[in-house]
């Protein structure tokens, strides 16, 4: 029982992190980035190739984070340009199509050129015992990194004027413009942040299992489910939803079987939409 809950929390932190970068971009810009998982995979490959080229793990991870941020910036400057010119539903639909296209291209290319590549960031040492349950060291290190990242996000959004400015655009874009905030600049900052978060996803996942070139879509799908449950545009919502779904998924895997856990997550998301259409902490329209 304790083991299942602890596993669920570890998994849930991963889920929450997955959703954080995804939900921010949707909350701020109305852009559903279906290539989000591929951003994580590209960062993973950058780290892998750096390590293969002889860079040691920690600087390689640093390079991967920079690459993630750069990817976000490139997204903002290229395929998101035509998307920003649309509004409302047209923007969501166009963002679905264009980012899905990018995802297919990235997936196709990586599968063709590097079909067997997989990033594993090994954490040395045996299991760590928590509440009498031996936990893999990689899971614990990954969880600690995720907690630190969430703490930093919280400080950024609550405690800095730039973070407040970003939140104000999520709250009311016109209101933000009226106080002198340029929404497109805030969106660029959030795209960069989302790219860095995708890279952190790649790093923490690679501590538990190899991040291969094929995991892009499953990352995106999970991010989408957690975002729906947590509420669009809410980092805290993503964190809470991640934990809840992580524990649910862990129970489902242990009691029923792995094959059903994704379906059970979908059911949980569907129930959330029925009860609270804007998610746990989402902006009410």
């Amino acid at each position, binding site marked *: 029982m304790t083991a299942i809950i602890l596993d669920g929390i570890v998994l849930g932190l991963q889920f929450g992190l997955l959703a954080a970068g995804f939900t921010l971009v949707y909350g701020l810009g109305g852009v559903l980035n279906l290539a989000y998982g591929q951003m994580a995979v590209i960062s993973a490959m950058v780290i892998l190739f750096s390590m293969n080229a002889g860079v040691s793990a920690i600087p390689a991870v640093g390079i991967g984070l920079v690459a993630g941020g750069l990817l976000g910036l490139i997204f903002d400057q290229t395929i998101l340009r035509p998307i920003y010119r649309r509004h409302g539903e047209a923007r969501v639909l166009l963002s679905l199509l264009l980012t899905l296209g990018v995802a297919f291209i990235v997936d196709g290319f990586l599968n063709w050129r590097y079909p067997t590549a997989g990033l594993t960031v090994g954490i040395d040492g045996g299991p760590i015992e928590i509440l009498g349950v031996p936990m893999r060291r990689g899971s614990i290190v990954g969880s600690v990194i995720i907690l630190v990242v969430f703490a930093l996000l919280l400080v950024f959004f609550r405690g800095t004027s730039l973070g407040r400015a970003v939140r104000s655009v999520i709250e009311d874009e016109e209101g*933000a413009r*009226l*106080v002198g*905030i340029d929404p497109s600049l805030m969106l660029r900052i959030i795209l960069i942040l989302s790219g860095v978060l995708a890279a952190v996803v790649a790093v923490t996942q690679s501590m538990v299992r190899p991040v291969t070139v094929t995991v892009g879509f499953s990352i995106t799908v999970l991010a989408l489910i957690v975002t729906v449950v947590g509420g669009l545009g809410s980092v805290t919502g993503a964190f809470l939803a991640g934990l809840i779904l992580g524990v649910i998924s862990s129970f489902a895997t242990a009691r029923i079987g792995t094959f059903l856990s994704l379906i059970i997550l979908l059911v949980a998301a569907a129930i959330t939409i029925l009860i609270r259409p804007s998610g746990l902490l989402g*902006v009410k329209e």
Partner: protein
Amino acid sequence: MLEVREVAAGYQGNDVIHDISFHVDEGEAVMIIGSNGAGKTTLFRAMCGLSVPSSGVVMFDGEEVTGHPAQRMVRNGLAFVPAERHLFPRMTVQENLSLGSYPKRPDQETISVVFALFPRLSERRRQHAGTLSGGEQQMLAVGRALMSRPRLLVLDEPTTGLAPKLAHQAYEALTVLRRQGLTLLIAEQQVPLAMAFSDRGYVLENGVISLEGTSEALAADPRVRSAYLGVT
């Protein structure tokens, strides 16, 4: 200070207002009166950078600012309070005010000016903006605009949805601001209040300016008296 020349604007290619020209001089309080749908909001949005005029020129402080986005206008000293207020509902009163001076840090002096003007905001500073009453939200919208230390404050129907007593209080606060040297431009349906407050005014009807003059002259005009002051 502000000069609008032959401005036309509307939505999706259909102009709602045509050939609008008016000006506001430094230190003045000017009103634009008109009934619902006359085009006051369309005019203000185009003038303050929330939309782009389809033709015409807007000058502010002797410089052309036509089509400049709202975020640039407010940094240049023109603050706009729309009728819908556009506050940040899930942020506290304090946070809303702090964002008003973005990107500069909110200076204590301006905050105390706002709190002196609206003591209610000081009492509710830790409350979320979305939980305030209509009157308090209007105070916060004006307070947030003041945080940018504007030279011209543009208000679209500041008394919308307010009870008569609160509407009076709103104009009392605006009178204090005037005395402190702020230039004001107000669109209003509550014509008697605006008329008592302002120096000059323009009447906007069906998208064009049909009358203009000092507030006294407008108050004496039979058309204004019958259409907006309820005097027959």
